[in-house]
C-alpha cells in the first residue's frame, strides 16, 4: 500500500503510511508537519508501533500537540495540531 497525503478540509490533513516500517512513518510525518500551517490538524494513520515512540518525541520537541490517539487492530490513528 502506497503512502498518501491529502488535505481533507480547510485546516485538516491526512497522512496514511500503513504498511511502512521505520523510518518511513516518522520521516513522512516530519515532512507533513513542515508542509501544513500552524494550527492545522494532521490525522496520521500508521501500523508500525515503533514509529509511534519517535513521532511522540518529535511532537514534544517541536511543540506540536498530539491530542488524540486511537488504536485498533494493530493500526494507530493519531491527531496532531501544529504548534
Amino acid at each position, binding site marked *: 500500500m502506497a503512502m498518501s497525503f491529502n488535505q481533507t478540509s480547510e485546516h485538516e490533513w491526512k497522512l496514511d503510511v500503513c504498511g511502512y516500517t521505520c523510518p518511513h512513518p516518522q520521516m513522512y510525518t516530519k515532512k507533513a508537519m513542515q508542509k501544513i500551517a500552524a494550527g492545522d490538524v494532521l490525522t496520521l494513520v500508521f501500523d508500525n508501533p515503533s514509529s509511534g515512540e519517535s513521532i511522540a518525541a518529535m511532537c514534544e520537541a517541536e511543540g506540536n500537540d498530539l491530542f488524540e490517539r486511537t488504536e485498533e487492530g*494493530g493500526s494507530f490513528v493519531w491527531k496532531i495540531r501544529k504548534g
Partner: protein
Amino acid sequence: MNAVTENVGANPGGLLRKSILQSMAVVLFVIAGSAVALSIDTRFVYLLVYVWFGLAYGILLQYGRFCMASAVRDLFAVKVPRMAVGVMIAVALYSIVAAIVTISGFSTFHPNAMGWHIVIGAAIFGFGIVFTGGCASGSLYKAGEGNMNSMLVIVAISFSQAIVVTASGWWDNLVPQHWIDSAMAKGMPEELSVTKGWFDIFTAGYVWDLKGTTTAELLGAAGTKTGVIVYNTLITAILPVIVILVALYLLYYRKSYLRRTKNANPALKDEFAGIWAMCTSSKNTAIAGIGLGILAGLHMYVTGALREHYGIFNFGELLTAMGYTGGLSIQDTVFDPGYWYITTQEAQWGGWVLHKLGIENMDSIYFGLDNGLPNPLLNAPGFMSIGIILGAAVMALARKEFKWKTPTLETAFFAIVGGTLMGIGARLAMGCNIGAFFATVTNGDPSGWVFLIGMTIGAYLGVKVFTWWMDRAAAKMEAGCGL
C-alpha cells in the same frame, strides 16, 4: 501540551480477551516445547536458557520499541534521541551486572579483535539498518509483531552472511599476499583450505594477528576487582555513557526542554533536571533499557553457572554427550556465546540450508572450525532468536498491536538490499550492534565503541541516501500526495 485522548479498540472487552488468549497461547506453546525438550533429555535445559532469555528479550524489546537502529538513525533522520538514550541506559545497567558476573567467575565473554575491519563493517551495517527499518534484534521483534518485511530482513541477513563467509572466486586474488602467507603459516588442517575463500584468508591472515583485549587486561589489571570495576565498568562503559548522554542532551534535547519549561537562564540543577527529563521522556524505552541491561547480564551468569555444572566450555560437548554429533565443527564445538548475540546463529540458519542444498561450506573457518552447522532444532542461540520473535508476539498480541504486514515491492527491495548489507557488515566487523557493541563495551572491551562510531557514520550516510530516495518518491507522487 493538552491532555491526550486515548481510545484503544472499539470493543475493548471482547478484543482484549481474544488478544490476551492468543498471547497466552504463545507462552503455552513455549512451555509445551520446553517440556518436550526436557522429556527427551534434561540437559536440553542449557538450550532452553537461550529460549527463555530470548522470550524475555522479545517481550522487553517490543514493550520499549527498543530498536538500536533508531538509536543512530532517528538522531539524523528526525532529531529524536529517545532510543540512543535507552541504549545508553541499557549499556550502563548491563555493565554493572556484567561486573558482578565477572567477579563471580561466571563470565562467558571473549573480547573482539581490534582493527579497521570493525569501522568498515560497522559502517556497512549502519548503512543497511536505515533501509531495513531495524537492527538485527529489532528485525526479530518486528517480525514478532507480524511484519513480513522484517522476516525478509532476517532471511537476507542469514543468507548474505552464509555466502560471504564461504564464497570463493576471482575476488580471492584481491587480498594482500601477506594475509595469504600469514594464513598459511597458521598450519591449519587441510580440510579447512584456509587460503581458499577471501573470508578464510581475512580471518586467518588478518583478524587472528590482531589483539582483542579488555581495558583491565590492557592496563595489567586482569582478574582483579579494580580491573573489573574501575577499568572495565567505570572507564570503558559508564564514563562514555555519561559523556554521550550529556552530548545528546546538549545537541538534541536542551533547546526544546528549556523552551517547554520557559527557562531562559538555567542553573546547573536545571540542566540536571533536563538530562533526567530526557532519560525518562519515554518511560517504556527507559524501563526496557533497564530490564534488558539486567537480563543480559543475568543471561551470562546462568549460562556460565550451567557450564560449570556440566563441566563444559561449549554446548558442542553437551550435544556430543547426548549423542548429537551432526554439524559440529572439527573442534566438536558449535556457536555458543553464552550471552545475547544475534547474527552468527542467523548465518548458521542460512549456511545449514545451503549445506542441505549440496553446497560444501564446512571447509570454511567460520563454519568448519569455529561455529559448526548444527540442525536448527539443536541450535541453542538460534532458539534465542526464535524466542525474541515469540516474546515480541506475546507482547504485541497482549497490547493488540499484532498485525500481519505484507511487503510492497519498495519495502521488500529495501529489506533484501538492507539486510544483505547488514549481513556483510556484521561479518566484516565480527558481529552486529549486539555482539560487537552491546556485549563488548559492557564487558570492558573498548572495540565496541569503535563499532558504534562506524555504525553512526554508516547510519548518517544511509539517512542522506534514504532522504534523497524519499524526496524523489514524494516528488513522483507530487500530484497525488503533495509532500
